[in-house]
């Protein structure tokens, strides 16, 4: 399915400044894999050493956090927006 991934400013230095990435994917996992295959430098900021989505990265499918949708296996439909929003913690 054609979907759009929105990339936060903090990640754009790994995407040559690209703020949005269109791809075709059936699940969130596929979409993220497509994104990190296209921009390999982004890979370690999306997933940890065990391949899990990083704890401080929130992934939204349209309005909802994917952790309420069954995680990255949740399926996508045409025109979905996938938002990557880093948690802003600490300091």
């Amino acid at each position, binding site marked *: 399915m054609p979907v759009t991934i929105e990339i936060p400013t903090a990640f754009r230095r790994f995407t040559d400044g690209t703020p949005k990435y269109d791809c075709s994917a059936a699940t969130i996992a596929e979409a993220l894999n497509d994104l990190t295959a296209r921009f390999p430098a982004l890979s370690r900021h999306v997933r940890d050493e065990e391949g899990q989505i990083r704890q*401080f990265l929130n992934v939204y499918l349209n309005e909802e956090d994917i952790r309420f949708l069954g995680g990255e296996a949740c399926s996508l439909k045409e025109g979905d927006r996938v938002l990557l929003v880093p948690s*802003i*913690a600490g300091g």
Partner: protein
Amino acid sequence: MWRYAELLPLTEDFRAPNAVGGTPLVAASKLAARLGVRKLYVKNDAVCFPSLSFKDRVVGTALVAARRFGFATVGCSSTGNLANAVAAQAAQQGLDACVFIPADLETAKVLNTAVYGARIVRINGNYDHVNRLCAQVADRFQWGLVNVNLRPYYSEGSKTHGYEIAEQLGWRLPDNVVVPMAGGSLITKIAKAFKELVTLGWVEEKPVKFFGAQATGCSPISDGVKRGLARFEPQKPNTIARSLAIGNPADGPFAMKQIRESGGWAEDISDPEIVDAIKLLAETEGVFTETAGGVTAGVTQKLIRQGRIGADETTVVCITGNGLKTTDAIAAEFPVTEAIAPRLEAFEAHLDSQLTVAAAAK
């Protein structure tokens, strides 16, 4: 709190813009007796200046940074108290304020922001939605959002709550602190403050147990601690403690680590228990706290009953906000009484009927 300026991220030519913090540490002997312990203290940020919550501290340091970086507009994502603090201090310092809040916030908290002339943007969604939007707003606009792009400066302000506790205990650390958790930052910053005072040699090093308090209706951190999870599971908040209603707490992982490494624990209580605890703190110590403070007081009671807090240990309960902000939550407890005529006989009759009611209740 500016007496600790050297320990905060400020420049050398810093001049305090306003008075913030410096709140009482109340020796809570009546509450202690009721709970069956001996040395209990309430750090009372319900009377923090200027906007009656500990958020005045974090906004204090954040706005100094905002002015240094040249932001003309400041703002925040907020469950209420932070919006109050940003609006009040921005007004005093001549900055524009634009705050983002969940649409269902308590009326008093919205009013306490509006009165200072701040722009308020109500969001259809919970705090986590508001926070997500603010991360995007900070990306797009040249605004200083205190808990987003000014966060490192903001969060350091929380340390002053901890410095004051140590100073008011006579430059000693307590055995236990009980801290409310929303985003989970405060508990880690009190720990940082204690550590810094040890490093400076101002207090003697000793183990301090950190206890976190949440409402059961929004308890991702306490749930994570109690179930021994590696990662907390986000929740959809449903509690009267709206100032703690953050289902996806950004500092949750750090809070869990701090609690575990200190040998502390986390607990949560139900909404009725929150109301009971608000009344308990008011009736014993004359401190009227908001729902978040009810959570902290009620969880303290629970931890004492569980034996996790000992009777002879020194415990500080961190009360972070004022009860006048969440009167809706307890209004049903106090129905309006019947008015009487301004005559002595009417009062005597009233007194008689009260005594009859009291006798019947026995």
